[in-house]
Structures are given as C-alpha cells and as structure tokens.
C-alpha cells in the first residue's frame, strides 16, 4: 500500500526539521504511537505502535531506522515490527521531504506500508482506509504542534 | 451460575447432558471446547469432518434439535438439553436411512468427504419440506459444498429419497 501526503505548515523549514528530530514530540504525533526511545541518536529509534479497528487491536513494537538524511531537506527511514500475539508483521518505508514555500514549509511524505499475517484477514480495503486515516491524523498533528507554538 | 462447578479454581467446567443419536449423554466440557472436537475426539464419532472451519463448506454439519449447525463453530456447551444427531445415528437397526440408500444408488458421492454433512442437511430439509422443488432444494443445500460430483447426482439422490420417504409415510 502506497500513500502520499502533503501538509503546509506555517513555520520555517529549520523549525520543522528540528521538530522531526525531537523524537518524543514527533512520535507523539503518530496516533497510537508511544514510548519513543532513542537507541542510537540520528540512526535508530524504537516505539510502540497500537492500532484498533473495532474489536481488533494490534500492538507492534517497532524499530525505526534512518536510512538516508539530507540536512534540512529529506529523510528516508524504515519502520518495522511484529505483533506476535496475533501473528502479524508490519513494515513501513517512509520518505519525508521538506520544501520552503514563502513563509510556509511543505512537508511531503510517501509511505509504503506492508502488513502481513493474520491481520490481513480483516481485508485489504479496511486496513488501507485505516492506514490512510492514521497518516492524515499524523500530518494534522504535526501541523498543530508546529503552528500552535509559533 | 449455579450450574457451573470448578474442577480447578482457574478452570471452569460445565456439566452438560444432551441426547446423542437417541441416547442420553452426560459429560463435562470447558466453555471454549468446540462441538466438532468433542464429538470427534472425546466421543469418537468421526463422521463429521473439519474442512473450511469457517461455516462455509458444511462438512461438519450436525443436526441439533433437527436443524443443521456447523459443529466447527459451535461451542459444545450449547447442546445442553438438546438432541444431537450425527451421521452415525442415522441408520436404524442396521438399516440405512432412505437418504443414505439413495446416495449409494444414485452415485451421490465420490470421495465421500462432504457426504455426512450433505445427508444430514438433506434430512433437515426433508423433515421440514418433504416435497421440495429443485430450486428449494438448491437454496437449502447451497451451503454444503462438494468438490467431486458437480452436485447433479447429489440433487438426484435427495429428490429420489424424498420420493421414497413420501411414499412410505
């Protein structure tokens, strides 16, 4: 599943960039994501991702690995984890880029999300809809965080 | 609640009694035990088969109070106080039921895996509708899958049995 999102943030690029590396606050913008930990600054992070569709719940302990980093403009990262309780795995390839546009910063991200295992029994359509909603909420939360304390 | 008693403090067991193929059966089951497992493994009646395990195929069909249920997705305690019929209980005094006889005579099975479920579902149909049209029969039986026969011989078998059963009664 591939998702592309863009969000205009009324904040300078530098502030957006720094926010991304303020891992605790940044991870807190992902709905259902908590317990962010830095394993190796700038390279590896861990978090716990929980999601819910009706009575179906998943809890993925994920590790996030930063693969590429172009200062002030782009980050490529991969997040992966497994929920052993219900036998499912998740992998997210994330490509985030920043572009200055006047007094705003355009934050774009492309996410390739793969979900394997029993969770797939819920149906591709439902999971895709859920993932899309999570990414939308995430984008809005980032915007709120950065514009709120401008 | 009073009906429950605990064997060990952490394990809940339910004493149940029901009629199995015409005979009283008393036993204890845990709430999570599935009827198909109890019938096959604890009671040794292996006519009902596990296949899809999601109530789609009908190979695990049993009759509870004369109505077909998927034993694969029925909790065993649910049969308390009720009457359960498996394929093993269908023949009487060594004489095959007209449906069983008809399936043999009309070639209503090949590999035979679906047959116990087919015959029990067909019995439920004929008990409520002794003279079904072919469409009524197909509607009732469409949840019992056969991967060998193409259904034609099964339909012929059931219609032939229906005729025989009507002429007898």
């Amino acid at each position, binding site marked *: 599943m591939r998702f592309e999102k863009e969000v205009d943030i009324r904040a300078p690029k530098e502030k957006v960039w720094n926010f991304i590396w303020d891992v605790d606050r940044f991870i807190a913008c992902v709905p259902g994501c908590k317990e962010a930990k830095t394993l190796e600054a700038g390279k590896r992070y861990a978090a716990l991702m929980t999601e819910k569709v009706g009575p179906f719940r998943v809890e993925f302990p994920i590790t996030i690995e930063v693969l590429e980093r172009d200062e002030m403009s782009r980050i490529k990262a991969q997040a992966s984890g497994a929920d052993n309780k219900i036998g499912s795995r998740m992998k997210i390839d994330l490509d985030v880029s920043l572009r200055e546009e006047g007094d705003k910063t355009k934050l774009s991200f492309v996410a390739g999300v793969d979900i394997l295992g029993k969770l797939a029994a819920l149906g591709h*359509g439902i999971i895709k809809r859920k993932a899309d909603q999570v990414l939308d909420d995430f984008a809005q939360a980032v915007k709120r965080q950065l514009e709120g304390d401008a | 609640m009073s009906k429950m008693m605990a064997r060990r403090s952490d*394990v809940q067991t339910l004493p149940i009694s029901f009629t199995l193929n015409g005979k009283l059966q008393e036993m204890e089951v845990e709430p999570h035990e599935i009827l198909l497992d109890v019938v096959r493994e604890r009671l040794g009646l292996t006519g009902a088969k596990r296949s899809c395990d999601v*109530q789609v195929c009908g190979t695990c069909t049993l009759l509870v109070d004369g109505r077909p249920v998927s034993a694969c997705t029925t909790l065993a305690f649910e049969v308390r106080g009720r009457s359960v019929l498996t394929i093993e209980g269908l023949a009487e005094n060594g004489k095959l039921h007209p449906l069983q006889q008809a399936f043999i005579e009309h070639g209503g099975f090949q590999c035979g895996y679906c047959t116990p479920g087919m015959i029990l579902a067909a019995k439920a149909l004929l008990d409520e509708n002794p003279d079904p049209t072919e469409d009524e029969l197909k509607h009732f039986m469409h949840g019992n899958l056969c991967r060998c026969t193409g259904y034609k011989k099964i339909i012929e078998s059931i219609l032939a049995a229906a005729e025989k059963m009507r002429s007898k009664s």
Partner: protein
Amino acid sequence: MLRRFRLEEPASVREVSELLGRFGESAKLYAGGTELLLAMKEGLVQYERLINVKTVQGLNEIQSSDGIIRIGALCTHHQLENSPVLRQSLPVFVKLEENVANVRVRQVGTIGGNLCFAEPHADPGTLLIALGAKLVAEKTDSRREIPAEAFFVGAYETCLEPDEVLTEIQVPLPATRSGIAYLKFGYLERPSVGVAVAFSRNGGDSIGDIKIAVGCAGPAPKRVVEAEEALKGKTMEEATQRLAQAGQVAGRAADAISDLHGSQEYKEHIVGVLLKRAFQKAVSQG
C-alpha cells in the same frame, strides 16, 4: 482451536451491562457466535470472558403493535425468515433473511449480533437504514433509541458504549402503497454490494419520502441522501428518467473501497445498477 475463556450466563439485561462494565475489554458479548467465534479461532481477538446473552429471556420475540414492528435482538436469522409477523408486514426483510449466508449460519446467527459485530459485508443494516429503523440500546440505568443510520460508525464499529446492550430493533410499519426493495450482488461468500430503497407515495403518482442506503461497498452501511434528493417528490416517470443520475450519485456517495470483492470503481458502478433495479422492483411492488 480456541483459547480458554470463562463463561458468564447473566439472567437480565441489567446483569449483562454490569458484567460489560466490570470486565471492560477483557469480556465480550456472545450470542450466535457466527462472527465472534471465527475471529477468536483465527486468533484476531482474545477474551478472558464471554458473556452469553442468550440466557436473558424475552429478547427473541417479534411483535407488531402501534405501527411498529419490534424485533428482539436475539432473534436468529432462521426465526426472522419464518416469522408470520414479518411475512405479513415486511416481506422484504424476510426475503433478505432467507438469503443471509447459509442455512447453518441462519440457524444460530442473531440479528443483534449481526448488527453489533458490524462486519462491513452484511445485509440487514442497509435495509434497516432505508426502513428508518431504530435500535434500542440499554444499560443498567438507561435506555436510548438510536436511528439505524447513526448506529454504524465504521468497519466493525458501532456507536454503542462499552456497557450498552442492543436489545430491540424497531421498524416502523411501512405505509400502504410504499415501495421497498433490497438487492445485493456478490460472487464471494459475502455480498460485495447491497442497496436498499424504501419510498412512500404522495397522493397521485409521485414519490413522497424516500430513503436509500448502500452497504458492503464501504466500511459501513450508510444512507445516501444525495441520491434520495434526485428522486424525492418526482413522479414515477420523472424518477425513472433520473435513475441513472441517482445511481451515479449513490455510487460516489457509497464510500466504496477496493478489496477482494471488487475495485472502488467497480463497486460504484454496481451501486448504480442495483439502485436502478431495486427502485424498479420497489415500484412494481408498491
């Protein structure tokens, strides 16, 4: 294989609600089990306790009085397809129930369980929305009536509170000369698209109130007011001419998602086709 759980067998709705409140998400209401047990066997959900609501008396009756058909939440599909009350007053619902899943699922599956599990590929919710049904939810100290169209929140999600119990479905008795139809299409075990139309006639030959609902295509059944607007108040002839347009509108409004049952575009198209046929069927019966 199922994991071990404890069974609670309450005697009243009040007790059910108390148990739900006490045990929270570690417990689940259990009625027919046709959906729940599949998810539990698959290991997708785990509960420490199941609360067998079937030990509560009086929730499996079907009655018609004061212009309302009251259906107990524990009625099985089998009961509904054979109900004399429904056969007489709501044959469209009987027809729908006759075609739910297969004879074994209908034997044990309940209407309440079907609605509360909110599996997207289900039939009854769609028709109940078009019929303007209300769902009665109770807990220890309160009771409310929820319009069917507000009941479904998303896939597998309803607006019920954690300790609320669905006890009854109330369907207003259709006015005389109203037209009602439900049609579904699918090629897998569950339907891919379902469309329900229900309208009353004004004096003469025009459409009075009309409700259209679409199910299965998206995460939850929903009313499509946009399509209703295209037909409301029109004469039968005008409405018939606008069916294609109404079908397109309904398709777009259906919130269809691509999955094994078909692509979004395909489902949107089928919604239009079914709407047209369902309307024609409703007209011929009204």
